[in-house]
């Protein structure tokens, strides 16, 4: 290795260790613009809303609920109504998992309506998971009111 190369290497390493170079840095501006929902869904046009309750982490309907669905099915068929079924959960468990659980509650109710003679073309289902609780509070009293399906007719 020649002397000049050696000294170049030494001075290079000196530069690195001494951090002789000045870096140029830039702080970027961060801007954000708001948006809002226009013409969002509302319950306008819904004429009745019936509620069924569920056990924790379950989507099966008890005998009381089945009787309620039988009666409702008769009215729905007689009056030619459309049905929107909303499935809801309590706050325990993760939000997306609860969205799936709420759907299985809504679908169980839909199947029972179909069994009782309601045309599936008249039924729509939606899950809100734990996003629209009926009662606030982290206790069994609130939770039992939130594990529900709403059968809305229009």
């Amino acid at each position: 290795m020649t002397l000049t190369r050696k000294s170049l290497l030494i001075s290079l390493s000196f530069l690195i260790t001494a951090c002789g170079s000045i870096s140029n840095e830039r702080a970027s501006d961060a801007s954000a613009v708001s948006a809002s929902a226009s013409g969002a869904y509302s319950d306008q046009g819904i004429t009745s809303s019936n509620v069924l309750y569920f056990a924790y982490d379950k989507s099966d309907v008890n005998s009381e609920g089945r009787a309620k669905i039988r009666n409702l099915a008769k009215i729905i068929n007689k009056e030619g109504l459309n049905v929107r079924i909303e499935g809801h959960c309590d706050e325990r468990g993760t939000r997306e998992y609860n969205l799936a659980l709420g759907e299985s509650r809504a679908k169980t109710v839909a199947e029972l309506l179909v069994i009782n003679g309601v045309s599936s073309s008249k039924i729509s289902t939606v899950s809100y998971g734990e996003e629209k609780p009926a009662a606030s509070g982290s206790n069994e009293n609130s939770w039992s009111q939130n594990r529900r399906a709403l059968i809305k007719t229009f």
Partner: protein
Amino acid sequence: MNALKGLILILLFVSSQSSLSQLRIEITGGAEDPINIAVVPIDWKLEFPQEEYLHEIIKKDLESFGEFKVLPPEGMLSFPSTEEEVFYRDWRLLNVDYLVVGHANKSEIEGELKISYFIFDIARERVIHKAILSGSIKSIRRVAHNMSDKIYKKVQGIPGIFSTRLAYIDKPSLDDKNYNLRISDIDGFNGISLFSSPQPIMSPNWSPLGDRMAYVSFEEGTSRIFIQTISTGTRSGIKLEKGINSSPNWSPKGDKLAAVLSKEGNPDIFLYDLKRESWSQITEHFGIDTEPDWSPNGKSLLFTSNRSGSPQIYQVNVRSKRVKRLTFEGTYNARARYSPDGKSIVFVHRRDGVFHIATQKIKSGKVRILTDTSLDESPTISPNGNVVIYATKRKDEDILAGITIDGKTKFILPSLRGEVREPAWSPILD
């Protein structure tokens, strides 16, 4: 010197902005052994006073997660602002490990400033970083956060996260009957509502560049995934399918979203190709498959499934679609997120009926519970892998809290507005 004059002016300007902030970091437990650092008030050579002090913002940043103890100006023996003015013994006497000094000047560009600053390693008696940082005078907080990030990187060897942002969802309150998707700086300042709706909003997820947000909105009376450009507010719904449309999660390249659809009758994991605007199916099982998260290398996805009878975390290879179960401890493991190195996962774990945030090395499978709060959910990991923010309850109220991955520092982010949930940490924003 200027900095001392400045200290008096502080009284006039301090906290005028903090009262507007929506989230605030409040440390509830700290690391035992912080690094000592001194940040000398930046010598301000502009013709108008600073409205917010750079060294104060930097101090707050560095102390946020308990890793640093920042020496206040009152304890300093001298106030250097250039490399030549630094006497190492002054700082050794004060037990300082690192020192930051600098001066701010007007830039040639209108509305901008330039800060020349130096970071010193006191024990080794040398400069470990010198830089000229430029930025907008109006965004002085961002300039300070940027400096904090550089200091953090030079001292800790991993990226700082003080310029990152947090997205979260506001619950409707008496003041505002709408659901709001908000973002703010990670220290709670500069909060803004990105999207507001009378119907629920869920599952915010940042694009890999941090310029767009995917989320679920119920504004059409059913769940639908929307993508919004943050800087313009422009938004559009992606192709809607029957049933659940939810849990969007950007691929590391930004070209696809993993998401959940129940169009086949039950929730499964799908990919949405943003360019072709089409869906393809990844998992196929009669149980619930949900909550996908891309691995940092883009090869696999984490997801939650109850196919074994209770919710557990699984990993699926995107190409082969081969599924592997990852969690075996307990009967409720869900909503997992990969650490940035892809070697660990952070998830919701139920033990003795209580929901905690836990972490597990993928290979060893050993679970370590991180949090001692209850009803914990929605963990989100800082882009440097060091900190987890999650949603929890305090006195029946939805709040956000955080913990460092080593478990040493705990903090809460109390909201000044009301109840908040579903935190989502932005990537590092350049």
